[in-house]
């Protein structure tokens, strides 16, 4: 019987008071407990950024990797042991800028990882530069005259790359977010959960008041999650109305790992590691004669 206490961390988070990451941390714990997953059955790979320190603030397996690179590290881990639940938790700079290519390939690969983006639409730890999801025109240390580029539409990108589970949550809606993460954890294949995360220090314009006035739940608006065209439309919706919930979901798509011949016999690291047998040695050398 797994409880919240099993996931209690020892270190106090380094996050600012009011940071949306507290909500995300709690939602992750809630989802894992609801599914009866114990800390040793899960591993969370993170990138670099404020939010990427998350695994240190709970009791769980973790790997704080490199900026933009938790997804490939998690992919290698998943291929080596698909018996463990693999999650990635990282910010928008990490996942949508430095790591954008890996996100796209993970989606088309349908590798079984839950990819949670702490999307605060700014760079926090490096002190306030604009991010791939910042509005054009945002004035920051690297965009003093206003950011020139249009923001990345991450959910639309994931859908176009063939992602089989695409959702958005909000750190200010804890239960709803925990539910989405729970669904993502049960999904077979790649699951993207973009999470609106207020940054009360570097992006006060997009904090709780901003989102509270704009978010709405797709499940309450008649959205059909298996309708790709509808998913496209709502994925591009941003402004006065910001949709939350499952945007697109396809069940039953084969995962990458279930199509790898070497994994038919079970998780790679659980297969015994033995020296080659004499007949195998003979067969390999015969190829060279």
């Amino acid at each position: 019987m797994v409880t919240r206490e099993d996931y209690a961390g020892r270190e106090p988070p380094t996050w600012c008071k009011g940071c949306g990451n507290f909500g995300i941390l709690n939602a992750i714990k809630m989802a894992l407990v609801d599914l009866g997953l114990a800390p040793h059955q899960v591993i969370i790979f993170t990138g670099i950024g404020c939010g990427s320190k998350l695994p240190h603030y709970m009791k769980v397996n973790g790997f704080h990797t490199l900026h933009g690179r938790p997804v490939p590290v998690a992919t290698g881990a998943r291929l080596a042991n698909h018996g463990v639940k693999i999650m990635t938790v990282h910010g928008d700079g990490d996942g949508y800028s430095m790591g954008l290519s890996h996100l796209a390939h993970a989606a088309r690969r349908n590798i079984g990882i839950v990819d949670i983006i702490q999307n605060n639409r700014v760079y926090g730890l490096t002190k306030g530069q604009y991010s791939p999801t910042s509005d054009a025109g945002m004035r920051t240390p690297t965009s003093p005259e206003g950011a020139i580029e249009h923001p990345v539409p991450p959910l639309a990108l994931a859908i176009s790359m063939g992602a089989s589970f695409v959702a958005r949550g909000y750190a200010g809606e804890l239960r709803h977010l925990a539910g989405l993460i729970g669904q993502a954890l049960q999904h077979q294949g790649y699951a993207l959960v973009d999470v609106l995360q207020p940054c009360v220090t570097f992006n006060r314009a997009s904090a709780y008041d901003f989102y509270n006035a704009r978010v709405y739940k797709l499940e309450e608006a008649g959205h059909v999650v298996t309708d790709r065209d509808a998913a496209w439309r709502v994925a591009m919706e941003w402004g006065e109305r910001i949709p939350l919930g499952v945007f697109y979901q396809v069940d039953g798509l084969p995962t990458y790992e279930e199509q790898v011949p070497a994994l038919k016999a079970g998780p790679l690291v659980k297969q015994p590691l033995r020296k080659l047998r004499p007949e195998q040695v003979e067969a390999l050398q015969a190829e060279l004669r």
Partner: protein
Amino acid sequence: MTTSDRTVGVTIRISGAAGDGVESSGAGFCTAIARGGLYAFGVPDYYSRIRGGHNFYSIRASPQPLYSHEDPVHLLLALTQESLPRHQGKIAAGGAILYDANLDVSPEEQVRDDIAFIGLPLSDMAQKTAGTTLARNTVALGFASGITGYDIGPLQSVIRENFARKGQQVIDGNLAAVEVGYVEGRKRACGFPYKLSAVPGAPARMVVSGTEAFALGALAGGCRFVAGYPMTPGSLVLHWMAAHSARYGVVIKHTEDEIAAINMAVGAAHMGARALVPTSGGGFSLMVEGLGLAGMTETPVVVYNAQRPGPSTGLPTRHEQSDLLFMLYASQGEFPRFVLAPGTHEQVFVAGWRSFNLAEKYQTPVLVFSDHYLATAMRTLDPDAFDFDAVQIDRGELLADTELDALDEPYLRFRVTGSGVSPRAVPGHPKAVWVSDSDEHNENGSITEEADVRVAQMDKRLRKMVGMVEEMSAPGLYGPAEAETTFVCWGSTVGPLREAVDRLNAGAGKPARANLLHMVDLWPMPVDAASRALGTARRLVAVEVNATGQMAQLIRTYTGRLVDDKILKYDGRPFTPQEIIARFQGR
């Protein structure tokens, strides 16, 4: 002709355009040579393109074991016009050029009067027998067998196998192509002085590339995860692993880029898989940050860099060994690593499995060098050349489940120990739940910036070097213990260099003219052993395939010994023994 110019064996070269089947027929002829009981050494030369251009394959054959290709060529099989001006100057006196008479080869192109120019309508002959001009190379190989007096049986066996999947008609057509070429070759055998005779009763030998030697060693050593991005000539290992992945239970992943490859390997190794990343210099450049991740988190990974000429895209299909200093020092900050540069196919096989043991025993990255020459040259090896019995799978401080069950204190992944190596768990056990971190961390993995912890962890990681250096072999000596000149080389240069040493010493008295020191275990550098070995050299000459003499610099930096001379080559082609000797003698 001096003793050192003397050739050993016969070299046949087939040259044509990309798409003419030069490489496949060259490799096929190497197998035919080996099946006749001779030793073959085959080297491809090709441009970075798919069609057209100029490719050639040189097959050296001898009843004696071979360690290198050599100059000159005795028989050139020229499938294209361009082949004549390019290779005429490389033919030995008394040799011959077979050219396709269906090509318009003008008399002006035949400038040598000490070699035979033999024109045959190869395209017609191929068309009439095998039904396609693509079989010109098969006709040419038949000719080569005939003119050298070589038994046709081995070539026929290779043809039967190579075309087995294409059906009996194709097999018969190609056998007929071999036959017509063979008959023409026999007609001219009398006037051709360079002969090959099959050796009946010889053992069934293997013809092996450095790619295959490494991949075999890695597979034998328990490599079960391979992530890589195609890049010549590293991708050859990726292809071999992919071809064997289903049967041998190896997970292989062609990644989206090299950054993904190194990071996937780190992830897989973190979970307990023996992980390999094959690449070349440009790919390794992208992997440098990931290498640091492995070093900081003490994750065992093996990276194989098959070098090619740089800088940047350089010469993609050619040979160089110019990444030495780069691989030794790559990535920000300081952390231990192994760097190995096996130079013979036997050493490459051993490195294949040994690298994984070193990686797991010391929980560090292991970087293994190869290069285009070593990766693609085909060498004939005796049946027992690869010692599979000696292969060990040693997982170092990896904790078994029973040991974790018995743990009665919190598991510390980065526990400070006397050796610097911490007991290693992999995620999945309830008693070993921790976070690994690329930030500086304390023993349980938590991020720290405290000065004393930082020093303790840095000292712990670097302390591993004490044990690591004990694993490193001294440079290998080849040749007599005393010599006027000691050559020093690393990696695959040992092949042509040892033949050069033999030729220099042939017929000479005492002291011998030359010996060589071969650096294989490069880092941590076995400084004491290397200093002792280098100290015996009277005159030390570095032989390297790069422009700045990187090994010479390394020797100076760590042993203080200055080389007396350097023989450097950086035209994208490997040394031949003759070239080393000519440069050594100032010619």
